[in-house]
């Protein structure tokens, strides 16, 4: 594989930035939503795991 340049110019370069930002943002929102709604008892149980032994 030689690093010659395959494309002459980059059209719609913003699609790279937009798609990556959307992916990040959606995952982040989903995570935030989950963390907010998660069952309190389960969270407490998991957070005590290091103390068990």
């Amino acid at each position, binding site marked *: *594989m*030689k*690093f*010659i*340049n*395959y*494309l*002459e*110019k*980059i059209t719609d*370069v913003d699609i*790279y*930035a937009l*798609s*990556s930002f959307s*992916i*990040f943002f959606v*995952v*982040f929102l*989903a*995570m*935030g939503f*989950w*963390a*907010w*709604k*998660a*069952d309190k*008892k*389960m*969270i*407490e*149980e*998991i*957070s*005590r*795991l*290091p*103390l*068990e*032994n």
Partner: protein
Amino acid sequence: MQVEKFYYDNKIVKMYAYATILWGVVGMLVGLLAAIQIYLPAANFGLPMTTFGRVRPLHTNAVIFAFVGNGIFMGVYYSLQRLCKARMFSDALSKIHFWGWQLIIVSAAVTLLLGYTTGKEYAELEWPIDIAITLVWVIFGINMFGTILKRRESHLYVAIWFFIATWVTVAMLHIVNSFEIPFSFLKSYSWYAGVQDALVQWWYGHNAVAFFLTTPYLGIMYYFLPKAANRPVYSYRLSIIHFWALIFIYIWAGPHHLLYTALPDWAQSLGTVFSIMLIAPSWGGMLNGLFTLRGAWDKVREDPILKFMVVAVTCYGMATFEGPMLSLKSVNAISHFTDWTIAHVHIGALGWNGFLTFGILYWIIPKIFNTPLYSKKLATTHFWIGTVGIVLYAVPMYWAGFEQAMMWKQFTDDGTLKYQFLETVTHIIPLYVIRSIGGVLYLSGVFIMVYNIVKTVKSGSLVANEAAEAPALSKNIETHGEQYWHRWIERRPIQMLVFSLVAVAIGGAIEMIPTFLVKSNIPTIAAVKPYTPLELQGRDIYIREGCYLCHSQMVRPFRDEVARYGEYSKAGEFVYDHPFQWGSKRTGPDLARIGGKYPDSWHYNHMLDPRSMSPGSIMPTYPWLLDNPIDTAITPAKIRAMQTLGVPYPKGYDQQANADLMAQANAVRINLKIDKITTPANREIVALIAYLQRVGTDIKLQRAIESLQSNK
């Protein structure tokens, strides 16, 4: 439900703990030597092996991959077994992993000192070692995932997520950045060239910090801090957000190492934006750590382990606040290439990694030897000496960095540069001296720890197999409330691995693909031609001696740099540079426009004794270059490797190359003779001079052609 009896493997934890201590001492001693060499050139001892350019990569590799590396494995092997309620998957794999890693460290130390380096910072190890690292990393992965799969605890605690993300990302970074074409048993050329090589290298370099020095240590923090404080982490929810935000954002931030360079502007901006976003998850993690101690600060007063952890987490917070600030172009314009960067990384290395490691060592050793720590008082002494050491290290370096950058940029009223480069170096030497005193203090703290741990080990006996019991993992998993999708993934380590990989791979790919594919990103310069065989040999000597560790080859588009060095660097100038040699620190001046600046004889005398040409210079001497013959037997293989990488040498040129090499070497020899220097033509110094006289001159040729054309 039936309770199963099993045993935790503490012996492997002990082995990693000992290796961590051993390599910590070695790596820091080498660092101290490097720190002294900066103000005392005689400490280079005039030998190739002990010269700064080889000592410095040994220091960085030793502390990152040997000290912190073994620290990671110590933390993972201890916590993973307990969080999974299972012994490690395979004792044999644990041992192969351990000894394989130590063998890599030893071969790394030997080859680096012998001058075998790829010339890419923190990825200096040559191709056979790169392959060994990949194999051992895979063994670690099998052992880790095997343990996770046979666990007796349905939940995967957040620490394990950090370990999984670490494993998968380090694997990806290492493989992508290590693409290289071998041309001999221990030497290769980077697959990438110039600006692309720089982008891949700093994508790797930055994420080595992120995924080798940070995420595994965060996992370790999330396990050992609650353990030491005997209370659960402040907010488990926050730790989940911390994890996902961190791995998503970190992977993008690499280009902030290349601000104002010849890297395309959009990539620089991308790096800046994501670096600033990084403050949020980093500080979320830091506050989560510190708040875990809420209501327990009285314990911190008593317990040296918690003291170490509090300072470690605080240093994490400082370094991750500073990182985004340094990614702002206006701040970076001052900080980059100066000791400010050195101060920044040592807040992370000495504070975050070092202190967290010490805290965990003081916690684990008594635990697995089933005896109290020999002396709490000595541990507290270690803490205070270490803390003063960090301050004495960092403050002078911040000062030096800021002061030197200001001096570089000052002009007189007549519009000329106020200071010679050398003046800006000699001015900060006292600060270098204080820095090494800080290093001595930090290291003496480590020796106190060694004594304390030896005494503790002697008073106890290793519980090699620690008995534990837990019910087998039920097929019917009990549920709490509603089942959200995260609950689904949280139970599935393999899917977790895949999602982590997707998260980091997207970032890497989107950042790099456009630079590789788009022609407009690297405008070509007609006058830029491949190096001649002699220059290529010279360039390899430049890489071997680690010149890039003190000299950049990147003139940024600033008034002072253009006035001091010459025309600013263009991406198109580096298309045949496998690897790129832009550097990251200017302990000496930039060399991007060194070609033609001085006569050949100046370089000859300067390499023999830098102080004869520049009184007060702190550069080491390189007398062996005057005696070593050029290895011409390897020239054809080098040319062929370059041809494979797309460098346009004519077909069959590998067989002619040595004839051209000797012709050019003779020209240099005659040039030196005119200045009353007698040397055979086939000496390494001749090749190095040929290379240095070529660097950055192609663009001058281009300008000459342009002015000829406009005069027509």
